[in-house]
């Protein structure tokens, strides 16, 4: 078994009102970042887990996302990276 570090992005699904994202976008516009078109505020998780190979570690984390880490009704997730921990 090898230890892997997996980064996960969880963000509000497109089409679902994200008032935090809107507030941040508005603040960025006020600061002069007028080119900003959209901001979504979500969560970034870093998970260390033991697995036989990187694909198994990733599969395991996808299962965690489906069962707990992301809400399937309102959120999307993506595995942002798998590296040896």
């Amino acid at each position, binding site marked *: 078994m090898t230890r892997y570090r997996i980064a996960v992005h969880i963000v509000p699904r497109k089409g679902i009102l994200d*008032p935090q994202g809107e507030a941040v976008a508005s603040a960025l516009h006020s600061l002069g970042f007028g080119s900003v078109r959209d901001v979504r505020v979500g969560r970034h998780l870093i998970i260390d887990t033991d697995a036989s190979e990187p694909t198994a570690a990733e599969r395991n984390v996808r299962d965690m996302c489906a069962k707990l880490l992301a809400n399937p009704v*309102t959120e999307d997730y993506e595995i942002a990276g798998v590296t040896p921990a």
Partner: protein
Amino acid sequence: MRFGIVTFPGSNCDDDTYQAVSDVLGADAVRLWHKDHDLQGADVVVLPGGFSYGDYLRAGAIARFSPIMREVVEHARRGAPVLGICNGFQILCEAHLLPGALLRNANLMFASEWVTLRVDNVDTLFTNQYRPGQLLRMPIAHGDGRFTIDPDGLARLEDGGQIVLRYVDREGGARPESNPNGALDNIAGLVNENGNVLGLMPHPERAVEAVLGSTDGLGVFESLLARVAA
């Protein structure tokens, strides 16, 4: 007929709920501990308000995996009544006993205020003591009460009469101004398809005595008492 009130770590309306059903309603009530696997003969399970597990990850997401939830889910699947108030509503959505999800209030502010509700379905285990369209005064106190569901899901809720309570103005109109959290279609409370699980964001247990400012919440518990056999 016995009410069972579950305490999770971070529940803070369990005492109020116990008092409402036990002292005010005069019903048999028992406290249930989240780590137990025993509903102690409760006919109605109540998941009370609060901030179970600190609302970590998402409100209700971790409480859903508390040991007692296995029995609560079985209880609900058998068709027995489950009532989720505020955080309890969030837990029921996370546990997929109710459809949809509850998101951060649209204005990002914690909403602690009195609201007016309209009863849009009185043919349920939880609302049979109210009149159709009756207006109720109850308090709300939550940061994550914006109910959302996909358009097909909303249509199913409407067709099935599952939307039981809506936030309205004093005249009974469901308008954006009377919506305290941005909930889709002003939804404040809904039942599952079978009608035995109710989740609502307002606090009926805080509106059971005149000294509290309203007795309009009592009808929820009286309805259960009237319908659920001993």
